[in-house]
């Protein structure tokens, strides 16, 4: 129940956004950490869950510092497209998954990824685009943290590293937006 609640708050934070990507990055990272903690009892590998917590927190802090001069606002088009994708994805997942599984959480996590993709596509500012990808990656961290085994975390860490390096390069090249 607590996991559902915090995943829903994570979803709201993804859709609503905050004008400053720096603050949004921090909030999103904290919420992701809380989601993993609430779901830790059922995690497949507790070590991976702890490592995912550390990864999400560290990347959130890095992006908060990197995007401190950026700002953006969400348009109505983006907000409505986000809402549309939530309804679509949650309905689809609840229909497809068997009743024994946490259907609502899977649906919400998938919608966060889709919304992140949509916001990254529609975002006109570098900050908005980076935050869209960050939302999707945080949702993936949630999945890996609770369901990952073996090399999954190493691969996730590598994904994050590549993304953070390229974000740093693009922010330093294209400057303020």
């Amino acid at each position: 129940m607590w996991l559902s609640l915090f995943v829903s708050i994570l979803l709201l934070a993804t859709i609503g956004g905050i004008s400053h990507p720096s603050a949004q990055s921090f909030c999103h990272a904290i919420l992701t950490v809380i989601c993993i903690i609430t779901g830790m009892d059922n995690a497949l590998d507790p070590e991976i869950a702890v490592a995912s917590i550390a990864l999400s927190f560290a990347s959130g802090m890095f992006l908060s510092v990197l995007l401190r001069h950026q700002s953006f606002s969400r348009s109505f088009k983006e907000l409505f497209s986000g809402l549309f994708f939530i309804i679509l994805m949650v309905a689809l997942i609840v229909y497809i998954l068997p009743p024994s599984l946490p259907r609502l959480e899977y649906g919400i996590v998938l919608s966060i990824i889709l919304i992140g993709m949509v916001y990254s596509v529609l975002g006109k500012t570098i900050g908005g685009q980076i935050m869209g990808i960050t939302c999707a990656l945080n949702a993936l961290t949630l999945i890996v943290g609770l369901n990952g085994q073996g090399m999954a975390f190493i691969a996730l860490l590598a994904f994050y590293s590549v993304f953070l390096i390229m974000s740093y390069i693009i922010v330093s090249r294209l400057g303020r937006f």
Partner: protein
Amino acid sequence: MATLNDLAKLLYWGCVIWPLVGMIGIFACQGQAARARCHFVVSIILIVIAACSACLADDFFVSVVWSSDGFTRFLRLTIAIGAGLSTLLLTFWAPRNLFFVKEDKRLLWNLLLFHFLVAISMLAVAANNLFIALLFIVILAALLMLGCILNQGESGIKAGWSYFRFVLLFAVLALVAAFLLASVPVDNAPFLAQFSSILLSVSIVFIAGLFPMSIFFLGITLELPLTLRGIGSFIISVPTIATFLRLYQIPNYQPSENLLIILAITSVIFVILNEQNRQRSSLCLCSILLISMTILGGVFANHIEGIYSACLFIMALVVFAPLGYMMSQNQKEDQGSCEGWVMLALSGLPPMGIFWACSVLFAYLMQIMPIVGGIVLALLLIRGYVLFQKGRTIFFTQDVSKQEIKLIFSIIAMQTVLFPLFMSSWVYQIASEFVKRYGGA
């Protein structure tokens, strides 16, 4: 026997280590001329190493993560040939681009990036694990973005960033779909396997370059510096197509053939509509056309004809994609007639170019899905008509003895005659092993 096994392993890892060694060699050279020569030598020797690795048919086991089957060796050989061809064209077709007036460093970084891209793609085609394969594909996209940044134009940086973003996002979607497929029990969820499979396969074919990602793929390839443009046209697509073909090894994977066929046909239509754009050379779109045809063959990768035609199209992709991008630079006087011969090779008409690959695919499609076969055939005929109307196909007006036309002829002849002559039985064997391993008929 043990010696042969060791030699096979040495050559297997040599395909990855040699480009890295080449980077050190290029870095150590002084002056642009020396670097250009070193680059040429490294690229040619890589073809030799990949060919020797392919010839050693000893089936050794590397690890669970890295596969060493015939398909991997074939893909590595094609990448080495494509990289070598790109170097050859750069040296003989557009040599001015190997020499910058003032900035020696730019050539250095471009050449280092070239070989790093080749090394990473050699690793990517060998990865037997979806996570690791997608990770290498994302790294390749990041390196291409770096290539655009090295070119130093703002439009290039934005194009590179857009492309990297999309590749990363589709990779994340593919990973989540793989998690759903692998981690979730499917006993009482009849649609789960199908839904996850659709999500997984569609994400991967988008990364390969099908519409609408083909717009961003085209955007980034046109913004890359010329040293990287030739390989930029296939260096992500070949490992992504390999990952797509290997999806059959994932348990419970159920591809949605109809949706993938629709996406491939949409990409072909996109190519036809854009080839009418007189501002842009038709040659730049040939990589998208070949990727679409490869995916169309790859949809049936659990049957011999499907994987066989996909391999033939991959061979055409690594030859014609660098050719197309290099020739779109308008470097030479007889550009029109050279373009004409390349477009004829890519039209599917006998006996040149992609005719053999197209005939295998169409023969199979006419057997199992005659409507789809008919639609694709009609699209290729429409495309041929559009190109003739556009007036770029001038074949017989120019002197065929000129050096540039000889170079183009020899490349087309290599792909049309030499490859099928020497490699068709090997590719058929690879296709049989692939189908035997991953199921199907």
